[in-house]
């Protein structure tokens, strides 16, 4: 943003589930800012609050205390209609489960969010094609999800999340159901979206390998930020390979 507004600005975020003795504090005062075009990974063991954080940022749930602002607008000031619109149009979600509709083709799955919002058919088809191209799935546009591999289904889910040209892409363990090779591909895709298309991405993972693909890593522990690390720009691969070979 030219005025310095963060795409995501989280202040003192607290979430308590339940009440009384059985209450569980999932988040205990988390601060987090994500700049436009940044690719941030949130890491932590299960139960550290990372998915809760993602859901609150995605306006899928409301905090007990603290604020979430998306593109400078405090979510608590939005009514349900505006929140629904925000979720549909400004935020793209990618989950571990792909949540694709089996009876629709790849292209129909991707254009669905636009069709629901009343975007004219031709325009929706054009943008779906563009989105499928971004994830390298143009050749599969007439396939049904059942005819695709796990990695392809996740790419399709990413294409669907991108079709609304969201301000923010939220990914919750996007490689959780994939083998190592497909996971590699998904991570390369996310890196490319951030680097070449300036897509802001917030990804939750418990896996260090995928977190290492991001520009910044936040570690949560017991509902708090335990550590935050900005990762330096990496050197070109031939240099790294040469160095590794010299150790053989």
């Amino acid at each position, binding site marked *: 943003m030219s005025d310095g507004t963060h795409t995501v600005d989280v202040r003192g975020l607290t979430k308590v589930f339940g009440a009384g003795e059985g209450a569980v504090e999932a988040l205990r005062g988390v601060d987090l800012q994500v700049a436009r075009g940044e690719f941030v990974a949130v890491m932590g063991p299960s139960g550290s609050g990372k998915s809760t954080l993602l859901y609150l940022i995605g306006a899928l749930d409301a905090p007990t205390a603290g604020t979430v602002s998306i593109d400078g607008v405090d979510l608590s000031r939005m009514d349900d209609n505006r929140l629904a619109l925000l979720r549909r149009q400004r935020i793209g979600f990618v989950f571990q489960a792909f949540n694709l509709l089996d009876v629709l083709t790849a292209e129909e799955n991707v254009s669905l969010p636009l069709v629901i919002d009343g975007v004219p058919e031709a325009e929706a088809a054009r943008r779906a094609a563009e989105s499928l191209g971004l994830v390298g799935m143009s050749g599969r546009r007439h396939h049904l999800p059942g005819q695709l591999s796990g990695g392809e289904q996740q790419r399709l889910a990413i294409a669907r999340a991108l079709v609304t040209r969201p301000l923010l892409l939220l990914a919750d363990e996007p490689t959780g159901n994939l083998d190592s090779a497909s996971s590699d591909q998904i991570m390369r895709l996310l*890196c490319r979206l951030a680097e070449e298309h300036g897509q802001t991405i917030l990804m939750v993972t418990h896996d260090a390998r995928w977190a290492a693909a991001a520009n910044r890593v936040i570690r949560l522990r017991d509902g708090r930020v335990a550590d935050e690390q900005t990762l330096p720009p*990496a*050197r070109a691969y031939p240099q790294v390979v040469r160095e590794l070979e010299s150790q053989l």
Partner: protein
Amino acid sequence: MRSAVARRIAERSTKLSFKHALLGLLAEGPLHGYELKTAYETELVPAGNLNFGQVYTTLERLNRDGLVSFEKVNQAERPDKKVYKLTSHGRRELKDWLTRPSTIDLDQRNSTFLKLMLARRLGGVDLMGVLAAERRACFERLHEVTRAKAQAQQAGAPVQSVLLLDLAVLTLEAFLKWLDRCEAALKQETDK
């Protein structure tokens, strides 16, 4: 002395694999010393830097053990050169070595381990701080190698480069998991 034994083991293990590297290169056809050095450095281990002494002493030993033989070739206005080739004994040794499982090298002399153990004993050192710094450094390295691997795949790098990066990625990942273990165990200890 520990160091003498350790040195002998280290010498043997590196020489052994180097010996087999030379046998492997000769399996493709006769070569002289300089060609062997070049082939090793350009094809087998691209960044490996060999000195001639190492090549020639190894070839002498291989010849003494009957694994290679050589033929002297006359050169005009230059000293004769020796062209080495694999003997049938050498070919058998190479084949045996290729199919014999390696002893996995577990070098436990790790400076992170040493730092943690010393920080644990010494007062006035923030053990968890040391651990966090080690983790960050490891993570930066993982980031670099992960990015390099993505680049390598995108650029259609040769399979040996990608596999080497994979080895580094998985090693670093295992090291990070081990650091998590350290954190849990050492925290429990200090909390007591």
